[in-house]
């Protein structure tokens, strides 16, 4: 349970020295209680107080990085079970599982899926290399996988193989193989250089092993919640996360990994369904047998949606988006930069099959009516966009179609943009296909 401000205040020096940047110790205590300020901002806390408070004010779920610098992956750090309570912070990452027999076949397919969606790179972040029992072959496979510029997960519970593979796996590595019988050795092998994946026959065993690893000083742990069945795995994933965030049991306050390659081997569609389930409910790393475009398109789209901060709308870059082979003579259509509006509108426009230039102006990431009400979408903002992006130099058409919901802007836009004809589209996106199929300039 999080401490109240008063409880923290009692342990401060109560000198109001302002060294922490706050006017009083009370103000500092209140901020710590909200999680707004770190405890160590106060230089005068006694060690005893720190030990007492450090534990209570620590976040419920550890957040750490795999790797360093720009390429690092961030895992964990969630504070809520439902995104509407605040936001989810560390998006789930995807891995494709492979071994010495399948690596050559799988790598070209893995490389193929690599695209941009709303400014986010969509690709397979990790390769999960399975140890089939031959340490030399395992190490060779890890070497090959490490050359791909992705994170590496080592799936082995053999200490020898783990140590050798770790030496060649690069610096973004998860050693997934600690269990009740080998954890001491594995804690040593992983050391500071790799995150350590832990599994157990049951949640009890997992719990005890994590507690034992914490005693040994292991910090960056990942809970492998993959169970014998799909049902058990879902139960594990939810219970682990719920224990940490709702019931404040920090032993389970770590990111999780779910291995669908084990749970639904050979069933691509079941893996798609499960990846979707675990994107919503608490998988931090999801291991798949493969990742083809058919799977990637919905799964990465879903992930991007779920990990959107509810307080910050997703935005599209302002600019000209030619659709259906539009050229400089094609009619211009405009809407706002709110991602959802953009996707719905551009989808319907594409369905119409009519070549159109979709002009997206900066409307603060709001929907049409909200942007209009907030003054972010106006005749002025549209005219400014047309000038700034030199639309008149790039496009010859002088017809601009505006959203039906801001029909009132028509006259004012025509006043500001001489030579342009403004046409009002229907109110709803679903009516756009019919509208444009029948549209005559």
């Amino acid at each position, binding site marked *: 349970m999080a401490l109240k401000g008063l409880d923290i205040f009692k342990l401060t020096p109560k000198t109001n020295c302002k060294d922490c940047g706050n006017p009083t110790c009370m103000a500092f205590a209140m901020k710590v209680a909200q999680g707004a300020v770190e405890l160590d901002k106060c230089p005068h806390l006694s060690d005893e107080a720190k030990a007492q408070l450090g534990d209570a004010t620590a976040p419920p779920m550890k957040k750490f990085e795999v790797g360093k610098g720009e390429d690092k992956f961030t895992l964990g750090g969630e504070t809520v079970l*439902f*995104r*509407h309570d605040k936001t989810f912070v560390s998006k789930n990452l995807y891995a494709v599982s492979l071994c010495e027999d399948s690596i050559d076949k799988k790598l070209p397919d893995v490389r*193929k899926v690599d695209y941009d*969606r709303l400014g986010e790179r969509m690709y397979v972040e990790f390769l999960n290399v399975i140890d089939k029992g031959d340490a030399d072959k395992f190490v060779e496979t890890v070497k090959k996988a490490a050359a791909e510029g992705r994170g590496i997960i080592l799936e082995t519970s053999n200490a020898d193989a783990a140590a050798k593979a770790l030496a060649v796996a690069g610096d973004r590595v998860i050693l997934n193989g600690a269990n009740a019988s080998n954890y001491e050795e594995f804690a040593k092998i992983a050391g500071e250089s790799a995150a350590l994946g832990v599994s157990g026959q049951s*949640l*009890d065993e*997992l*719990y*005890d092993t994590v*507690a034992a690893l914490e005693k040994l000083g292991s910090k960056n742990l990942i809970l492998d919640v993959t169970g014998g*069945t*799909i*049902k058990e795995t*879902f*139960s594990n994933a*939810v*219970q682990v996360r*719920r*224990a940490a965030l*709702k*019931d404040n*049991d920090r*032993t*389970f306050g770590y990111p999780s990994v779910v291995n669908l390659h084990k749970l639904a081997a050979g069933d691509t*569609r*079941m893996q*798609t*369904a*499960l*990846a*979707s*389930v675990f*994107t*919503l*409910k608490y998988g931090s790393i999801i291991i798949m047998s493969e990742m*083809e*475009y*058919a*799977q990637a*398109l*919905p*799964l*990465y*789209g*879903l992930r*991007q*949606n*779920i990990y*959107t901060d*509810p307080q910050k709308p997703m935005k599209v870059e302002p600019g000209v988006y030619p659709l259906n082979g539009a050229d400089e003579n094609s009619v211009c259509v405009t809407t706002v930069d709110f*991602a*959802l509006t953009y*996707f*719905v509108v*551009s*989808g319907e426009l*594409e*369905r119409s099959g009519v070549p159109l230039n979709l002009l997206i102006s900066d409307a603060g990431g709001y929907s049409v009516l909200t942007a209009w009400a907030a003054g972010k979408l106006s005749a002025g903002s549209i005219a400014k966009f047309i000038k700034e992006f030199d639309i008149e130099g790039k496009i010859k058409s002088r017809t601009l179609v505006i959203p039906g919901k801001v029909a009132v802007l028509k006259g004012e836009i025509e006043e500001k943009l001489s030579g342009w004809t403004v046409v009002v589209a229907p109110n709803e996106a679903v009516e756009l296909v*019919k509208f444009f199929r029948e549209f005559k300039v």
Partner: protein
Amino acid sequence: MPFKPVQQKFNAKINTLSIGTGEKTVTLGGESVFPFYSFDAPIENRPSVGVEISDLGIDEALPGVAEFYKGCASLPELAKRASEMPGADFLAISLDGAHPDNGDRSVEDTAALVKEIAAAVDAPIVIEGCRNVEKDSKLFEKIAEALDGRNVLFLSAREENYKSVSAAAAMAYSQKIGAESAVDINLAKQLNVLISQMGVKTESVAMNLGSAAAGYGFEYVATTFDRVKSAALAQNDNMLQMPIVTPVASEVWTVKESIVSEADFPDWGPAEERGISMEIATAAACLTAGSNAVILRHPDSVAAVSKLIAELV
């Protein structure tokens, strides 16, 4: 020291609602836990899967769909085949051909057609309107009469037509109705209140809270479902305890990922597989967020999603 799980069983329940008659009756809802949280308490009725056909026929451009319905010469035959689809619990009929912009088939003709279809199947039936509120009111009234005694679910009653749909379908013929709102917990609750004020029993009402394909604003869907289930279970809000029925097919088979051709996007692979994958991923997400039933179109999606449900419950 063993792990001490804290169970989260609520003293509130999702309403049960059944559709259809006889052996094939489908019952939705009844659980007192979050979706698939069977570790907290048993789930009374597993979520259901419906298969959707249009009154204009099926999409033969999709090889898998065409293959499944091969040899069906009429809508009733098509419906019968659909109702026997492995994994499908009920049949959903979408009345696209009655929409004013899409053929505008008359109310009488449509009702007669639906009656013919219904006579060919013994599975529970969900009637999805043509998505024009005025026409739907008239259609539902006639169809409620034509399918008297079949315990049909009508999707949907909306803010604009809930009065006539409630009066005709739910009250006059004791059919079930779905209250449709656009991905917003407040609108959903308001509509449920209005419908209950008409005198419709809450046990006759399901909710269609709206949907979106994965990647197309699904965060609103997930969050609305999460909040509705939380209100229903944790706060015992009886105006949000209706089971959720989600038409997924109509959302997923129109997005770019499902329709652009392989010729235009060679890396993406065959369009049909992309559509199936979109349908499966979206349905799985809806179920995880709270749908008590999903409505799908492709036989492969129906098979995969019903298998997922069987594994999770």
